[in-house]
Each structure stands twice: as structure tokens, then as C-alpha cells.
């Protein structure tokens, strides 16, 4: 009994670790959807770019001879957030703003085009192969119970802590700051917000930047956790984060967090008790099932189609 319970707990821990990074990416989808009602297909690519950027900074600073690990990691996190934010800004400016207001299909195709473009841009810039990074943070705690091991690595703790800090600051930003209030207003009624003298273009740009920066945080964390990156990782990660966003209710921030955690745990359970190969299949099937039976997700509000 203890053995299976311990194994189960271990899977929950692993699932929550990955799930919290899905939640970080899902926020980007859900915020953009909440404000302009489109799916930002290129969001997964921003996550991929974030991973590459943090690898570049870590490798670069290590080569310069710096040995202060917390400093290196913090710099990597901040640089990748900033540059990824600039990517998010540019993507919105180049691919989405000109087609805003036209039909949904058009914005969607433009987004997919952007996603394909970024994937191949990275493939040309850094090569198509896997790039591995030696583990920066090793070790962890482990407990033995009746000869069974339960592990909690430092990396997992860092992932939890960083995720919680990011989510909390986002929550404070949205609920307390002036800009956050403008964001919420924009999500409710864009035309009215504009009439009240708020530059909605700017708000939309800010949303993209925040989403991209959070995706870069996820890229940094998962990059350190898995230790590999290649130009294709954004595709699957984006799909999963989107699943998380829909699961929790697209447009809702707490929903994105909840959805990410549920998806992470479900996945790790599938991998543990069923089969690793079908891990991705389970995520997509989950997506289809939610869309069929509860398209509004767990915490989402039903959408009324207006004529």
C-alpha cells in the first residue's frame, strides 16, 4: 500500500511541476483570447525562443568565467523575458494588428503562418538538432519510507516557487494597477474602452508582451528541467498549453492555472500507469472531450454570439 501510494505521490509531484509551466504558457493564450478573441498560434514558438535565449545567456555567462550560479540564472531569466517580450510585441505588430477586424479565419491563418515562420527561423539560426545543456541545479530532498524513495528535486521546488511568484505578480498587476484595470476594461468592451480615452492598441500590445514574457519564464524553467531544446518543442508545448487554457476556461486567468495543473497531473499519471508514448494522445483527447462536453471549461463564462 505504502509503495503504491508513494509512487502515486511522486507522480503527482512530477505532474504538478510540468503542469505549472503549462499554466504559465496557457496564461498567454487566455489573456490574448480574453482581449481580442483570437488564438495566438505563435505563442508556443515564443516559449521555444525563450528556452533558446536562456540557454544562450547561461552558456555565454559561464564561458565568461562567472561562477555565481544564482546571478547567472537570474540574468538568463530576465534577458529571456525581455527579448521574448520584444518578440511578442513584434509578432502582434507584424502579423495580428493588420488583420484585426477582418474575419476569424484570416487572423487564424496569419497566426499559423507566423508560427511556421518562427519555427523555421530558429531552425535556420540554431540548427535543427537537439541542443543539450548540462544540469545547472542538481540534487534535492528524498525521503525513504519502508525502503521506498520519494524524490523532490531542488529544480522542482524552483519551478513551483518561480511559477507562484510570476502568477502572483500577474494577479497583482491585473487587479491593482491602472494598466491592469485598463486590460480588464478592454476585455469587456473594446469600443467603450477606446471611447473612455484608453489606447486599446497599447493595451493589446502590453497583453502580448506579458504573455510572451511568461512563456519565456516557462521556457527557462522547462529548459533547465529537461536540459534539451530544439526548434520543434514549441509546437507540442503550445498545443498542450492551449489544452490547459481551454480546460480551465479560456479567457479566465485562474482557469489557465487550474487547467495547467490538471493537465500536468493527468499526463504524468498516463505516463506512469499506462504508457509514455500515448502521453500526448491523452492530452489531445482531453482537449476534444472538454470542447465537446463543456466548451466553456471549468471556470469560463459561456459566450453569447451576437449578431
Amino acid at each position, binding site marked *: 500500500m505504502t509503495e503504491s501510494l508513494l509512487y502515486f505521490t511522486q507522480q503527482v509531484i512530477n505532474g504538478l511541476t510540468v503542469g505549472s509551466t503549462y499554466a504559465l504558457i496557457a496564461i498567454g493564450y487566455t489573456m490574448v483570447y480574453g482581449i481580442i478573441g*483570437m*488564438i495566438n498560434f505563435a505563442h508556443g514558438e515564443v516559449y521555444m*525562443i525563450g528556452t*533558446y*535565449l536562456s*540557454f*544562450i545567456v547561461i*552558456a*555565454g555567462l*559561464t*564561458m565568461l568565467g562567472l561562477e555565481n550560479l544564482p546571478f547567472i540564472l537570474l540574468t538568463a531569466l530576465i534577458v529571456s523575458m525581455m*527579448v521574448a517580450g520584444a*518578440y511578442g*510585441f*513584434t509578432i502582434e505588430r507584424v*502579423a495580428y494588428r*493588420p*488583420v484585426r477586424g*477582418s474575419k*476569424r*479565419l*484570416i*487572423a*487564424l*491563418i*496569419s497566426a*499559423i*503562418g*507566423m508560427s*511556421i*515562420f*518562427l*519555427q*523555421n*527561423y530558429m531552425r*535556420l539560426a*540554431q*540548427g535543427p538538432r537537439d*541542443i*543539450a*545543456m*548540462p544540469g545547472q541545479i542538481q540534487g534535492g530532498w528524498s525521503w525513504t519510507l519502508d525502503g521506498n524513495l520519494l524524490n523532490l528535486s531542488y529544480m522542482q521546488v524552483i519551478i513551483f516557487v518561480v511559477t507562484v511568484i510570476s502568477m502572483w505578480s500577474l494577479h497583482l498587476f491585473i487587479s491593482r494597477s491602472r494598466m491592469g484595470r485598463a486590460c480588464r476594461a478592454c476585455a469587456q468592451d473594446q469600443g467603450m474602452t477606446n471611447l473612455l480615452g484608453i489606447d486599446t492598441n497599447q493595451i493589446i500590445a502590453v497583453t502580448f508582451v506579458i504573455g510572451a514574457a511568461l512563456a519565456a519564464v516557462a521556457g527557462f524553467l522547462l529548459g533547465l528541467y529537461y536540459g534539451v531544446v530544439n526548434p520543434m518543442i514549441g*509546437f507540442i508545448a503550445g*498545443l498542450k498549453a*492551449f489544452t490547459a487554457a*481551454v480546460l480551465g476556461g479560456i479567457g479566465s486567468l485562474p482557469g489557465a492555472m487550474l487547467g495547467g495543473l490538471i493537465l500536468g497531473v493527468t499526463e504524468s499519471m498516463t505516463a506512469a500507469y499506462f*504508457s509514455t*508514448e*500515448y502521453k*500526448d*494522445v491523452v492530452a*489531445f*483527447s482531453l*482537449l*476534444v472531450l472538454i*470542447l*465537446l462536453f463543456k*466548451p466553456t471549461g471549468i471556470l469560463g463564462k459561456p459566450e453569447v*454570439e451576437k*449578431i
Partner: protein
Amino acid sequence: MQPSFMPAAIAAGVTFILGASVMGIRLQPAGISLEVTSAPTHVYLGLIAASLFVFILQYFRLTERFSRLLKSSQESKVELPAFLRTQQQQRLWTMLAIGALLLFPVIGSRGWIDLATLTLIYVMLGLGLNIVVGLAGLLDLGYVGFYAVGAYAYALLNTYFGFGFWEALPIAGALAALFGFLLGFPVLRLRGDYLAIVTLGFGEIIRILLNNWTEITGGPNGISQIPKPTLFGLEFNRRAAEDALGTFHEFFGIKYSPEYKVIFLYLLALILVLITVYVIRRLIRMPIGRAWEALREDEIACRSLGLNPTMIKLSAFTLGASFAGFAGAFFAARQGFINPESFTFIESAIILAIVVLGGMGSQLGVILAAVAMTILPELAREFNEYRMLLFGLIMVLMMIWRPQGLLPMKRPHMELKRG
């Protein structure tokens, strides 16, 4: 419009930072650790040139001027050239084109015929997806899943039950249509962008299943030795298999040449494409075709006119899938070997790019786009590496500047003159 310095300078600066942060520094595995190296100088020169380009674009607001120019040119109607105005002329030119395509193997070299066959497969896929995306306005990102179903249907039926190409072809089409139906039935009630994601997930699921169901599909190794199609039972090999009628060259008493096989495959693909074009052309003019387009334009208006949106969408989805199934079966027969690698998301993206570039709903546009998209990369081999990059870029630019495609479809219509 005043030229503006600061925004232009900022745009140029951002361009440089974005490019330099990813392209200027390369990650280089060194033993167990990771190192970074600076990119060669020409990359930096390129980045500076790109930043300057962005600066000039922004400073003189060229993009705005350009899009305004395009908008005004779109309002002046794009007319067909003079020799294509009347229906008789169109029919004549179509006949001439088909004749030229039939005669192509006589003058073309083997490599060109092979390439033409590949192009025809893409034409077929493009036309099939055009029903779903172009006409019905449903974004299907998992189209390659149906293509895979068709290909594996033939390969598996052949391996396990010994079916020939001709018996398997309708089954492959029907099976793909069935998959389309089963997938479409629940998901078509969803809004457009959810549909896109679900179909994307479906394409991935099919690929993962094919990859992991090793006992039946051979997993990543795929299925090999899929026989080529026969001409009324005549094979195109040097020697006939035991249960075959005989070989083509023996039957007609000519010398064996491997070229016959290539030419036969080309002609077969051409016939399949012509059938596809004809069927879809008829469908567009039928009430169902008009319903597809009406639905694309305004779903609520459609519903209030008594059309059942789910059934109409489902018909488009199923029909589109069946064409992918036929194309898949032919693909398997042509390659003789298939594995899940041929059915990645990239393929879906290429087919989508063909439909988008050609003009949504327009058959001629899709055919020309398919030809351009497959032949151009072959003409310039070094360009091949940049192919997908350009496809992505084309999709974005087309949506911004010419969302209706290069050759948009035109219905016979009358316009009310204003004023």
C-alpha cells in the same frame, strides 16, 4: 504624412536586437558543456541591412502606402485575359491544357515526369482542402491525418489481405471519409478556432498512433514493398508476379523500360486530378456548394434561412477528407514505402499554404499555387532550406494584403450601380 524619425529608429533597433539575440549567437555543444560562438560577419551585415530596411520602411511609411495602393488596385476589378472571357473559349483552352498535359511524358525527362506526379498529388490535396477551407470556411489543420489514413489503408489492406491498388482506392477514400465524418460529427458544432486546434490534435494523434502501434503499422519503420498500380492487371515490372496477368511490355510486345512505370503513374495521377476537378466543379454549382459558401459568409443568416449548418459543414468535411484518402492511396502506391514521417504537421501546413496562396475557393488558383509551391523549390535546390520559412511568411503577407488569394473565385453575379 510626416516622416517620423523616432518610431522608425525604435523599429530598426528592435529588429536588430531580435535578430542578433537569436541569429548572431550560436549555441555549440562542446563535450558535455555548452558554448556560444559568434555568428560569421555576413550574418551581422545582413542584420544591419535588415534594420536599415525596416528603418526606411517605417520612416517613409512605405507599408501603409503599399497597402493603400493594393487596396485601391483591388477595387478596380481583376479581369480574366481576353482569350478566356466566354465559356466556349474557356472550354477550348481547358481542352488544350489537358492535351498538353497528356502529351507531356513524350517530351519530359524521367525526373520531370516524377516531379509532375508529385505536383499532381499536391494539386489533389489542395483541391480537397479547398472544399473545407476555401469553400466552407472551416480551418482544418489536421488534413494530413486523412491523407495518412488513405495511405495506410492501401498499405495495410495490401500487406494483410493482398488487396490491389484498384480495390483499395475506393476503400481508402471511403475510410478517410468515414474518419472525417466521425471526427467532424462532434467537433463541427465548435467555433472556428477551436475546430482548427481539434483538427490539429487529430492529425497528431493519427501520427502518434501510427508511430506506436508497431505490431500492425510497423511503427517508425513504416511499411515497404507496396505494389504499384496495374493497368487492367498488367504489371509494369520486368517480370510479372505469380498471380498477375502478365507484364505491360510482354503484352504489347515492346521492350521493357522502367520509364513506362513512371509515365503510367503520371497519367494515373493526371486522371485522378481531372476527376477531382470535375467532381468539385460540379459540386460547387450544386445547392450544397452554394450552401458551403453561404455558410462561410454568414452562419446566422444561413440558419435563419433554414439550412442546417452542422450537416453542411459535415458534408464539406467528409468530402474533403475523402479526396485526401484517394491522394493518400495513390501516394502509397507511388512511393512503394510509407512511414509516419511523411504525415507531419508540415505537410498540412504546405497544403494550407497552397490553398491560401491560390485563392480560397478558386480551383485554377489552387492548381497554379500547387504547381508553384512544388516546382519552385526543385528548381532552386539551395532555396529548399528556406522553403518553409517562406511559406510561413507568404501566409502572413497574403492574409494582410490579399486575403482572397492570388486568383480569387468569381461567381457569375450582377452588381447594383450606386448613385
